[in-house]
């Protein structure tokens, strides 16, 4: 759990809903709004791997009837945490629905290369097109640091915004919000280069945006371009956020989950509400759907990863699994958030970064059964990939635990090993074990006994061995004077 990126559609929905509702930190120069924003026009269209593209699009027309309005001009783009979409040709501007539909249909489900990452395009966002001049494109970014939140602003936004750290005006809002700057200060720092007439509108917008940022516990929010269209006599303006990237603090779910959910409820989005059919309707804990945190572009979450993530979310223990290369030769089953990184480092520095199949860890005293399911998942993935002429390597590693009972977590690992013992030998899997901590003696004794009983190619070490000392032994054929664990 940490700060996680969210879909552009979700970010926009949250802003649209909460901009007028969040409590301002200090009064804005404009009178409080008398009405709330209407539901946003956000058609977030998802194409599952096995669904027909045209059927999904047909359904989208039903869910978002405004797509079919006469003379509607639209923007279409993938919504998958892809940066600089415009530069990769992944932005369709000023299209009719027919054109946008066609544009999406050509791309949905396709493998797409963005910079050096490849991934499938599965989720698109369609919105009304907002005609504007290029000198009306601004840029705003809020990001959190230890001392507070930086607001970066420049009047030269747009696709070619360039190095914002260099050119943007900045202001640090301290953590202690009683020290929040005055409207005059905000205008003087951020809006130096902006026509005076739109200052009030922009200060109001920035104040509201920041209030949402705080209230909904964003950790990052970037809008580029932020379009500010002044009225004829340049005394006021309308503000539109065209492109948005955001991260929320997932750990704040217990405080903000309600706010994240309600902004994305069908009512807030103006979607037709499906009739509450008796059995099929699932009751969610809040007024809307729980927040989704999509995997980064190019790394679709596999069934196994989702399974572990679900188990992780449901228990106090920590269980993590990321598949890096399902065909890799080197697999890890490591306990501890720090030790797991150390293992990955050691494997990479031995020259096997490309062969590293997974990153993962289990910690926080998981039960025997949780460890079993975790280990089983990793072993299944390892044995599902085709055999390799040089065999495979499995590290069952970990540091010296502080309070996890090693014997009981190892029982889970051992159960998983037993289930797949014949395949382990078929795939010529070398198993290297290093672990210590409460009751490690019994844990290591048991796993060693099982290794011998099942005839596995296994080496077992205790705390005398350096935490990741088994990696060079296994991968680079180095030798050691430290004896293997024996009873």
């Amino acid at each position, binding site marked *: 759990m940490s700060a996680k990126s969210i879909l552009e559609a979700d970010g926009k929905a949250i802003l649209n809903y909460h901009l007028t509702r969040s409590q301002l930190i200090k009064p804005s120069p404009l009178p409080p709004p008398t009405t709330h924003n209407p539901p946003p026009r956000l058609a977030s269209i998802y194409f599952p791997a096995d669904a027909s593209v045209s059927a999904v699009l047909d359904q989208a027309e039903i869910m978002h009837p405004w797509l079919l309005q006469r003379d509607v001009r639209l923007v279409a783009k993938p919504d998958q945490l892809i940066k600089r979409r415009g530069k990769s040709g992944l932005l369709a501007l000023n299209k009719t629905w027919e054109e946008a539909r066609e544009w999406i249909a050509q791309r949905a489900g396709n493998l797409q290369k963005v910079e050096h990452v490849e991934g499938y395009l599965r989720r698109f966002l369609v919105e009304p097109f907002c005609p504007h001049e290029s000198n009306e494109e601004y840029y705003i970014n809020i990001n959190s640091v230890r001392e507070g939140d930086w607001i970066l602003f420049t009047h030269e936004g747009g696709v070619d915004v360039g190095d914002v750290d260099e050119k943007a005006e900045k202001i640090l809002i301290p953590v202690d919000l009683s020290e929040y700057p005055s409207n005059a200060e905000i205008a003087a720092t951020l809006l130096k280069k902006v026509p005076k007439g739109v200052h009030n509108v922009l200060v109001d917008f920035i104040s509201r945006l920041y209030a949402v940022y705080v209230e909904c516990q964003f950790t990052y929010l970037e809008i580029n371009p932020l379009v500010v269209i002044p009225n004829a006599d340049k005394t006021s303006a309308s503000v539109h956020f065209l492109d948005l990237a955001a991260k929320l603090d997932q750990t704040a779910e217990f405080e903000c989950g309600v706010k994240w959910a309600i902004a994305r409820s069908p009512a807030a989005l103006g979607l037709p509400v499906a009739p509450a059919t008796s059995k099929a309707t699932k009751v969610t804990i809040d007024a809307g759907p729980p927040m989704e945190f999509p995997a980064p572009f*190019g790394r679709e979450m596999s069934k196994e990863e989702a399974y572990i993530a679900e188990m992780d979310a449901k228990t106090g223990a920590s269980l993590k699994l990321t598949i890096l290369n399902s065909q890799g030769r080197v697999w890890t089953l490591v306990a*501890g958030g720090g030790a797991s990184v150390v293992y990955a480092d*050691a494997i990479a520095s031995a020259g096997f*970064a490309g062969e590293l199949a997974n*990153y993962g860890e289990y910690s926080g005293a998981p*039960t025997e059964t949780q460890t079993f399911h975790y280990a089983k998942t990793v072993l299944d993935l390892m044995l599902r990939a085709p055999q390799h002429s040089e065999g495979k390597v499995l590290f069952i590693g970990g540091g010296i635990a502080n309070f996890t009972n090693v014997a009981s977590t190892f029982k889970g690992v051992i159960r998983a090993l037993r289930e797949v013992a014949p395949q382990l030998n078929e795939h010529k899997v070398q198993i290297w074990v290093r672990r*210590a*901590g*409460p009751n490690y003696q019994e844990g290591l004794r048991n796993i060693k006994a099982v290794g011998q009983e099942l005839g596995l190619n296994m080496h077992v070490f205790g705390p005398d061995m350096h*935490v990741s000392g088994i990696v060079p032994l296994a991968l680079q054929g180095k030798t050691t004077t430290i004896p293997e664990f024996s009873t």
Partner: protein
Amino acid sequence: MPSTAPTNGASPAQQNLSANDNILRFSAPSRPLSPPAEHTLFHPKTRCFVYGMQPRAVQGMLDFDFICKRKTPSVAGIIYTFGGQFVSKMYWGTSETLLPVYQSVEKAMAKHSDVDTVVNFASSRSVYSSTMELMECPQIRSIAIIAEGVPERRAREILHVAKKKGITIIGPATVGGIKPGAFKIGNTGGMMDNIVASKLYRPGSVAYVSKSGGMSNELNNIISQNADGVYEGVAIGGDRYPGTSFIEHMLRYQADPACKILLLLGEVGGVEEYRVIEAVKAGQITKPIVAWAIGTVAGMLKTEVQFGHAGSFANSQLETATVKNQSMRDAGFFVPDTFEDLPSTLAQVYQKLVKDGTIKPKPEVQVPKIPMDYSWASELGLIRKPAAFISTISDDRGQELLYAGMPISDVFKENIGIGGVMSLLWFRRRLPDYASKFLEMVLMLTADHGPAVSGAMNTIITTRAGKDLVSALVSGLLTIGSRFGGALDGAAEEFTKAYDKGLSPRDFVDSMRKENKLIPGIGHRIKSRNNPDLRVELVKSYVLKNFPSSGLLQYALAVETVTTSKKDNLILNVDGCIAVCFVDLLRSCGAFSAEEAEDYLKMGVLNGLFVLGRSIGLIAHYLDQKRLKTGLYRHPWDDVMYMMPDIKQPGGVGGGRVEVSV
């Protein structure tokens, strides 16, 4: 408490020793301690509160204190707002001590003015409010926050206030830290055997700061093997905004003359390592630093990976482990090529300092022994003890509840019904389906028999007196005995005895009459041979159809033929019928040996059937009365005959006895 009277299980030799005699009590210091130096966070007299009920962690801290030869435990008390308990009993070496448990922070602080540290085990949801409250107390100098998953904004608010007040925060998302010979936060350092193995009971010369708690224990081990041991170690936690970071602790270590080597274990993500580099460049830190940043793998992977720690994610090139390691190397830190080489790098630095006289290795001290905890020793399989209780029918310890070995999910998968559950729990075996069905049938038939019978009457009266469900149910059940409901046991006994002796039905009836005994299970108030009890007919036909043998039922029916020939209503009643059929079941279903069948009858299992079945009806009567909102029942006077003895007459009526002649 009197010092005699051994409690159960105490050995006779200790008869004059009460448990109380083995409890040590520690008084507060007579005068306030002189304030510690600015750079000293923990010292051998540090006293703390543990926030949250964490007996295992507290015991670990007390054990650590004991082997460090502290005079008083480091934990002054426990703050547990969910309260209820006033003291918590802990071991102090081989004796015991009582730690006070406070429900409010304010009270705890008022009682212990010498406490300046809190180990906060509150959950990620409540840690913000509790830490904010703790920081209101002027005596608090440092707080360790253990919880993982504290919202980043809340963590920043905590550290902002802490900075203003000069409070040191360790964490969130950490195991804590340790100062050998002085103080240990929570679970840091693991179990006693590891603390002894890594020599954490006495100070060395190497002080470290690490992000990861798990890796801090690894560092304890590395330092004890490659240098003279740990002087102090802090795990700042893996979150994005740790309350204190590397630099704060590194500066403390620099200022502390007893600390000779600094060790920094950084990580991909964040820029905190650079602040240490700046301090070195500015000449604020002059002691040798051995350092490594983990997460060098990140740059070699194709996609971005969120590692185990929330903060371990590089947002820029500067935040990658590789650049950090190079920058630290350039600044003159001792940075190995890989983490695996860190021990030898440390050993080299240490040997150099020993050679030039900066470090003078001290002689090893004797380690006091701590007895192993009973629970841990038994987990390790080192000890055994006879159990005071045995249970052979259900087990709730595993992942799944077991009924006589059958997992509860199978109970539903195989749909064994309440009869199946009864057979598992009562008889510890699966009975054939027809037998389970029979048990269910008995429950259904005995469930209720109207409001007028004694059990239901009692329940109704108790309910109307305003009592709760359990009281009303129990008052009804208590009437069950040889007169009410008990006919089942009696019938089973008499019929079986006669049948097994080989008495013919007629002989049986005759012998009972000679003994002036009624035959239990025979006779009904209204029903007769021509007006049969349908309940009996149901049981009879089921048993005759499904049971492999029904010898005793046949016998009882023959007895009925004899008795009904005397009087029409002397039929086999429902109690008798159930009783004999149940005996047939025990004897013929093949699941029981003859001896077992006998034993179950003796144990009164038939009565159990009636009690269980009738509980359904009694609860129904309770609910019925509640639903009707009936008031207190008072029996009318005119329904009681009052007959008082005349005490004025000597000897009263009939010499003091009340005689009733009808």
